[in-house]
C-alpha cells in the first residue's frame, strides 16, 4: 500500500483521542468553565470501556460505558464547582488525581486481559482503491465519529441559537442571568458534554487504538488536549488540525524506530510533551490574541448574589 496514505491513516488514528477530549473541553470552556480534570475523565472512561467490553464482548457497549463514566466523573466536578462554587483549578486537579487513582484501582484485575476491540472498517471493494481507499473507507468507526463530532460542535457553536446562548454564558454570565437564561444549568450541560467526550476519547484508546488496559495509559493526553484548546484559540477547526499534528508527533517515535534511527526511545517519547510546551509558548506569547478569544468568564464561579 501507499506509504504516505498509510502514514496519514496512522496520524488520524493517533490524533483521534485528542480530537474527542479537546472538542469536549472546548465546549465546556466556551460556557466559562475550566475543567482541568480531562486526564482523569479520560482514564476512567478508558478503564470502564475496557471492563465493559471484556464483560460483554461488545466494544460498542464499552464505548457507551466510557462516555457514561466520563460524564459521571464530570458531574462530580460540576456539583463541586457549580453548585458548591469551589475553585475550578483546584477541583479540576483533584478530579484528575481522583481519576488516576480510581482507574488504577478498578482496572487492576484487567491488566493482562485480552479483548476483541473495535476494528477499522473493511469493505474490500472500496478500501483496496488506490491511494484514497483506506483513508476514506478504511478508518476505525470511532474516527468517523470524531469527525462527525467536529462538524456537530462547529455547527452548534456558530450556527445555532443554543450555541449562541452557551457562548453568551461563557462571555458574561451576569448578562445571561439577567436576561433569564439558567446559567448554572447551561454550565452543567456543557461540563457533562465535556466529560462524555473525554470518556469517549479514553474509550477509543482502550477499545480501538491499543486495545488493552494499562495503568495511566492516556500518558498525559488529557493535559495535551487542554493545551490544544488554548493553541486553537477556542476554534474547533484548529482543534482538529492541532490534534492531528500532535498525533503525527507521537508517531514520530515509532516511525524513527522502524526506520532504524539510532536515538534513545526516551528522547523521541519526549517529543509530544516538548512540542506542547513550545507551541503553547508561541501561541500564548500574543497576550491580546488569548484575551480576545478566551471566554471572558473562563474559570470564574458564578453566584447570582455575589
Amino acid at each position, binding site marked *: 500500500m501507499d506509504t504516505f496514505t498509510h502514514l496519514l491513516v496512522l496520524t488520524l488514528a493517533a490524533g483521534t483521542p485528542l480530537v474527542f477530549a479537546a472538542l469536549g473541553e472546548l465546549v465546556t470552556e466556551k460556557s466559562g468553565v475550566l475543567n*482541568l480534570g480531562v486526564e*482523569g475523565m479520560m482514564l476512567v472512561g478508558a478503564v470502564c470501556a475496557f471492563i465493559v467490553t471484556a464483560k460483554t464482548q461488545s466494544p460498542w457497549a464499552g464505548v457507551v460505558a466510557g462516555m457514561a463514566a466520563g460524564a459521571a466523573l464530570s458531574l*462530580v466536578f460540576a*456539583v*463541586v464547582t457549580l453548585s*458548591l*462554587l*469551589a*475553585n475550578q*483549578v*483546584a*477541583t479540576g*486537579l*483533584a*478530579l484528575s*488525581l*481522583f*481519576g*488516576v*487513582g*480510581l482507574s*488504577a*484501582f478498578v482496572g*487492576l484485575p484487567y491488566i493482562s486481559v485480552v479483548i476483541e476491540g473495535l476494528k477499522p472498517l473493511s469493505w474490500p471493494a472500496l478500501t483496496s482503491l488506490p491511494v484514497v481507499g483506506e483513508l476514506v473507507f478504511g478508518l476505525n468507526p470511532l474516527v468517523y465519529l470524531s469527525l462527525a463530532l467536529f462538524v456537530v460542535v462547529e455547527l452548534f457553536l456558530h450556527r445555532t441559537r443554543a450555541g449562541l446562548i452557551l457562548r453568551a454564558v461563557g462571555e458574561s454570565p451576569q448578562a445571561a442571568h439577567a436576561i433569564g437564561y439558567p446559567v448554572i444549568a447551561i454550565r452543567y450541560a456543557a461540563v457533562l458534554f465535556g466529560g462524555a467526550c473525554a470518556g469517549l476519547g479514553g474509550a477509543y484508546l482502550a477499545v480501538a487504538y491499543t486495545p488493552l488496559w494499562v*495503568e495511566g495509559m492516556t*500518558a*498525559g493526553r488529557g*493535559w*495535551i488536549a*487542554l*493545551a490544544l484548546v*488554548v493553541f486553537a484559540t477556542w476554534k474547533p477547526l484548529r482543534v482538529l488540525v492541532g490534534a492531528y499534528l500532535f498525533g503525527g508527533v507521537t508517531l514520530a517515535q515509532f516511525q524513527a524506530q522502524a526506520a532504524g534511527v539510532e536515538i*534513545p526511545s*526516551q*528522547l523521541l*517519547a*519526549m517529543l509530544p*510533551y*516538548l512540542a*506542547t*510546551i513550545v507551541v*503553547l*509558548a*508561541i501561541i*500564548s*506569547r500574543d*497576550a491580546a490574541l*488569548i484575551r480576545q478569544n478566551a471566554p471572558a468568564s473562563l474559570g470564574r464561579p458564578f*453566584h447570582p*448574589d*455575589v
Partner: protein
Amino acid sequence: MIRLEPRPEPSRTAAWLSPLLAAGAMLVLGLVLFTVLGKDPWVALQAFFVDPIASRYGVAELLLKATPLMLIATGLAIGYRANVWNIGAEGQLTLGAIGAGGIALAFGEGGGAWVLPAMLVAGALAGLAWAGIPALLRTRFNANEILTSLMLVYVASLLLSLLVHGPWRDPEGYNFPQSKLFDAAALLPNLIAETRLNIGIVIALVIVAAAWVFVRASFVGYRMRVAGLAPAAANYAGISAHRNVWLGMLIGGACAGLAGAMEAAGPIGQLLPVMSPGYGFAAIIVAFVGRLHPMGIVLASLLMSLLYLGGESAQMRLALPSAVTGLFQGTLLLFLLAADVLVNFRVRLGLRRIA
C-alpha cells in the same frame, strides 16, 4: 430548598473545620468501599489506619514518608498563596534525584563529608532549574504554568529512565535499569536505630519553620500574599507579578528537588526508573488540606503518609490493591473543596426571600 447565602466575611471556624469534615467523609466512604468489597469494615479500617503505626518502626515509616510530602507542600503553598500554580512538583522531585544521584555516582566512592551536602544542594538546584522553565515561559511568553509544569513531569521521568537505562546503569546490576547503590558517604545518617528514619525529617521541619517566617514576617512574603488575595490591589501597589511567579515557582521547585535528593540519599539509596510513588502530586493535596499553612501542612502530610502506609498494609493483610491509596487521596481533596463552600457561604434552608 437549600440555598447558599454569601457570608460577609470568610468564616475562620469553617476554614479549619472543613479539612476535618473532609477527612471524616473520606473515612465514611472508606467504610462503604470496604463493605462493598466484602471486607469487615472495622477490621479493614484498623488494618488501614491503626496497624501501620502500631509499632515504633511504623511510626518511623510514617515520619519518613511524611518528609517529602511536607517539604514539597510547603514550597508549593508559597506559590499557591500568590496564585502561582506549580503542579509539576513530581518532575522537579525527579530532577532533584537526578542531580543528587549524579553527584553520588561521580564522587561517592571514597568521597569525603562534603559529598552529602553537595548532593542536597545539587538536588535543590536541579529542582529549582526545572521549575524555572515554566516560570520563564510564563513571564516571557505568558504560557500557562499549569500545563507547562505538568508536561515537564513526563519529560523528567523520561530523562531519568534514559539515564538509568543508559549511562548510569549499574554495570554489575544484571542489566536491571538502576544505578549502583550509593556509597555510605552519599547516604543520609539514620535518626532512630533499627528504622529507616533519617535526618531528612529534621531538615524538612527546619524548612517548614523557615517558610512560616518567610510568609508571615518578610516583606517579600507579604507582597506575595497580597498578590494572591487581591491581584488588582497588588498591581496598583506596584507589586511585580512576574517576580511572584519566579519566587513561587523557584521555591516550590527547590523544595521538591531537595525532597527528591533526600529520597535518593535516604530510603532508596540509588537511582531507580521511578523515584516516588506520586509524592509530587500528593503534596498538592497536602498543601490544600493543610490550608496552605505550615502547621496544617505538617498535620496533613502525616495523614497523607498514613494513607500510603495504609494502602501497603491493606494490600498485605486484606488483599486489597494498594491503588486504593490514590483513590483515598483524590477523594479527600474533592471532599475538602466541596466542604470549603462553608467558608464563604451559609447554607440556608427554606425559600428565597423576596426582597
